[in-house]
């Protein structure tokens, strides 16, 4: 460990994220890993529709901005055509686990050799705080003013657990960015997820529990607590698959 500076893979751009948003931390981690593995020039990233839609302005790699939820299909198209490139998706919970459910499950099931970074902030950030598939029971959102579950919305989907049933998945881990230790674990996991792709091992996903102070309507401090006390309870951290 020499210096702590912005990784080369991140452009010198101020992001549009809100203060205290987990996307910024996750971006830096992904960029650091790409730097460390020396794959920046052969990486192709896919931006989701969600708060991270503009990430192509921040990352110093080739990028494509996909339709909402379809990044795994787009990544499939890219990776199959250029199998020697490193292809990753970066998706929110609405993108990956609601509208993109089918694309996620089937890319995983095919064992597409891609890396999926899944930012689970339990809310639709970009559109202003509606219920996400990962919103936890009782959590109020703009479309569940009485808290999720009051009107037949069901409970949160645990994506790592769900995907662990599919033979095509190679590596699934859930981490967080709500403490420095979690940040380190996330970095380790994301690195591994990229290394798996380099080794041709198949579908790897890291689910990152992340803060959205704005749409949770919480302060920075309270946002951390929400992740650490509430989200981690519903979404236990750990490795769900590794083969």
């Amino acid at each position, binding site marked *: 460990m020499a210096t702590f500076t912005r990784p080369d893979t991140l452009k010198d751009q101020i*992001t*549009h*994220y*809100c203060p205290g948003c987990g996307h910024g931390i996750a971006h830096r981690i992904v960029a650091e890993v790409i730097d460390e593995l020396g794959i920046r020039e052969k990486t192709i990233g896919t931006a989701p529709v969600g*708060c991270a*839609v*503009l990430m192509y302005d921040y990352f110093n790699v080739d990028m494509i901005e996909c339709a909402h939820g379809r990044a795994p299909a787009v990544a499939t198209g890219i990776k199959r055509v250029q199998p020697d490139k490193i292809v990753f998706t970066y998706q929110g919970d609405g993108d990956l686990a609601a509208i993109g459910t089918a694309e996620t499950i089937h890319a995983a099931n095919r064992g597409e050799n891609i890396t999926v970074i899944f930012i689970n902030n339990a809310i639709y*950030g*970009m*559109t*202003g705080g509606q219920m996400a598939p990962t919103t936890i029971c009782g959590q109020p959102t703009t479309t569940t003013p009485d808290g999720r579950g009051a009107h037949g919305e069901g409970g949160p989907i645990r994506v790592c657990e769900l995907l662990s049933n599919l033979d095509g998945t190679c590596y699934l881990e859930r981490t967080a960015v709500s403490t420095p230790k979690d940040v380190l674990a996330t970095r380790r996991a994301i690195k591994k997820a990229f290394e798996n792709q380099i080794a041709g091992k198949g579908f790897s996903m890291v689910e990152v529990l992340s803060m959205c102070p*704005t749409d949770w309507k919480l302060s920075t401090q309270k946002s951390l607590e929400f992740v650490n006390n509430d989200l981690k309870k519903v979404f236990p951290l750990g490795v769900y698959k590794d083969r």
Partner: protein
Amino acid sequence: MDNQATYITIAGSGGQGIVVVGNLIARACVIEGKNASGWVAYGAEMRGGTANATVIVSQEEIACPFVETPDMAIMLNQPSLERFEGNIVEGGMVLLNTSMIQRPVERDDLKQVFLAATEMAHELGNLKVANIVALGAFIDHTQVVKMDSIRQAIGDLFASKNPKMVELNLKALDVGAANYKCEKVKG
């Protein structure tokens, strides 16, 4: 410009509560029995970017709900000023949030009102009420609607959501109304 109508543009960054200001003026109009139309344009889908709202206060039916050349403007940050300065009608007025705008207006035909809205909001303990601080100054200065109508509108708008906010916002309104500087037209 239609003679009967007053056009107001409010501009700032996405999170600065542009919508609320426009909404409050429009509500105040309705309270006073005037025609009003408020409209907001966003930059990005939600986060960041700039936003601006147009409020039209009029006696007749409002056809075009926005205008290129407003009579009055509330500028909450620097990029907004860059964008809208040239558009304001000759002899119009502009309110500048000096907390986030480094320079005065370049044109010399405009009436200018200054206040450090964001800093005042910071002192009030909530950066988010900078918009209301600015609104207080704007209404006090221009009297497009009565201050009482605005107070009533604030009550209507926030009471259901969060009664505590009513109080804070009314306070912000007062702070703004009491703390602005006004510069005469040079020309």
